[in-house]
């Protein structure tokens, strides 16, 4: 084709200009700045002086940093694999339904995912309310002693994890459903002809064919849950904040409550690399496990 490549490039530059402008301003520039101020003693707003790696070395003996790091890890442990399994199980059940019932049931499972975190917070704060919460009535019924779940250090993270799984499962369920629908029916028919039961059909057909999707959901969950903040912050209101710190919460505390932008940036850089390492590792793993998984 005889097109004027020069004018084509000009048109292209005009088309990408808005995006590049936005990206430069709110992505590239803040990202570069993040690394720079992590080596300074800058306050939240304004410049600081260069202090070398001091912000980083201080993290090693920092009790709050340790709390936030281990709480984040604990939260990831409580949500990623259990959440994926729950979603997988629900998807298998929903996949067996058909027509309007399937649409309705899927909506019931999916609706929480659409809601803002503050709505989720109020709903569960009410459901688990120590005095009037409907969950406590159920506890009474089974003779389980009532617990102020969000005020107890032991139960805080597990409770937030349950709420988070409830809130976000809809997303994973959708992915699993898309995967289940892509499996050709003929395979199951052939298996049925060979007298395979539900269980062996699941183990020999569904599970291996769904493994790539499961890996995908696990990765998305892992990256997502490493960045947890909103729920932990909201449920901590009026509680023991410092026991519930997670990494983004600690960044927030350092920057916005202690006015230490440089030290907050150092924590952010650590989290940044944790997420990047997980992403890259996953990318390499899916590559190594054969191009078959796309």
């Amino acid at each position: 084709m005889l097109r004027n490549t020069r004018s084509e490039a000009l048109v292209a530059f005009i088309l990408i200009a808005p995006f590049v402008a936005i990206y430069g301003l709110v992505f590239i520039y803040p990202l570069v700045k993040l690394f720079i101020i992590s080596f300074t003693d800058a306050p939240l707003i304004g410049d600081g002086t260069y202090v070398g790696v001091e912000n980083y070395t201080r993290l090693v003996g920092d009790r709050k940093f340790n709390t936030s790091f281990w709480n984040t890890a604990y939260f990831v442990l409580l949500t990623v694999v259990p959440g994926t399994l729950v979603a997988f199980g629900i998807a298998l059940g929903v996949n067996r339904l058909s027509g309007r019932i399937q649409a309705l049931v899927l909506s019931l499972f999916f609706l929480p995912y659409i809601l803002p975190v503050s709505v989720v917070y109020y709903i569960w704060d009410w459901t688990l309310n120590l005095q009037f919460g409907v969950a406590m009535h159920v506890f009474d019924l089974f003779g389980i002693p009532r617990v102020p779940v969000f005020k107890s250090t032991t139960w805080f993270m597990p409770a937030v994890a349950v709420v988070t799984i409830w809130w976000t499962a809809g997303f994973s369920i959708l992915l699993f459903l898309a995967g289940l629908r892509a499996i050709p029916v003929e395979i199951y028919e052939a298996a049925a002809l060979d007298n395979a039961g539900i269980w062996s059909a699941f183990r020999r057909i569904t599970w291996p064919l769904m493994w790539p999707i499961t890996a995908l959901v696990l990765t998305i969950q892992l990256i997502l849950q490493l960045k947890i903040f909103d729920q932990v912050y909201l449920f901590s209101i009026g509680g023991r904040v410092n026991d519930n710190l997670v990494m983004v919460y600690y960044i927030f505390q350092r920057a916005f409550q202690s006015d230490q932008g440089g030290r907050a940036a150092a924590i952010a850089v650590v989290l940044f690399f944790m997420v990047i390492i997980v992403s890259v590792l996953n990318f390499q793993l899916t590559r190594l496990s054969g191009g078959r998984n796309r």
Partner: protein
Amino acid sequence: MNAVTARRLNVAGLIITLLTVICAVLWAFPLYWGVVSSLKPEDEVIRPYIELWPDTLTFSHYVFALTETEIGRWYINSVVVALAVTFLTVGSSLLCGYAISQLHFPFRNALWWLILASFMVPLQTLIVNHFELVASLGLLNTWAGIVLPQLIHPVIIIVYKQFFDSVPKDFREAAVMDNASEWRILTRVYIPMNWGVTAALSIVCFIWAWNAFLWPFLAVTKTNMMTITVGITQVNDAFGLSYARQLAAAVLAGMPVALAYLIFQRRVTQAITLSAGIKG
């Protein structure tokens, strides 16, 4: 297959189906419970047993939230912010996705890699710098300030690029033969072809923006500039010590996105599957 196996399969299948339906009802129960509680008078809300339907139905908590608090103002803030984020993100991503997909220009691959890489960056780590940036522009406590850092959604551009890639080359060649300008080709050929995608991406982008918490929470300190998602959690005294009022406010905050989902169900699920499929 013989009759015995078939019957066993049917029974097992029926049990699984029943279990799924029961689980779905239990799953959605907290939502139902929240809504129903918001419709009960205060003394009924705190009765020590489970009451699935109020004795007296009341909308007084909604009336209170709408008239006695700044929730109306927060609604306006949320609508403006979410629409602006949607319009700017989808618009700029569409143009850029088209350019990367269909046009040759220097640094095209570099730009594409940058977008793919930005996918991995956890935006929560940028809050300190976003705050400094928005503050230095004098945009704290303004709509623009809430909008600006929310415009990073690389997924949308990636989905667009893939869709434009999948349009057969013949369309483009025919249009070029007719001497159509690049802008005409885009608006008359490519965009109409992808209306479904644009609609789906716009709806989920709106939902993301409406639900955003961390950044709007940081960018705003003035009560009258809060978005509804943030406002209802930050102003405890606005609702007094009343569970029903808080729940009514929560229902009001969740209503637009819940309705958007119920009306555009298929588009929402389509967009989410699309944007996640990319990640693999």
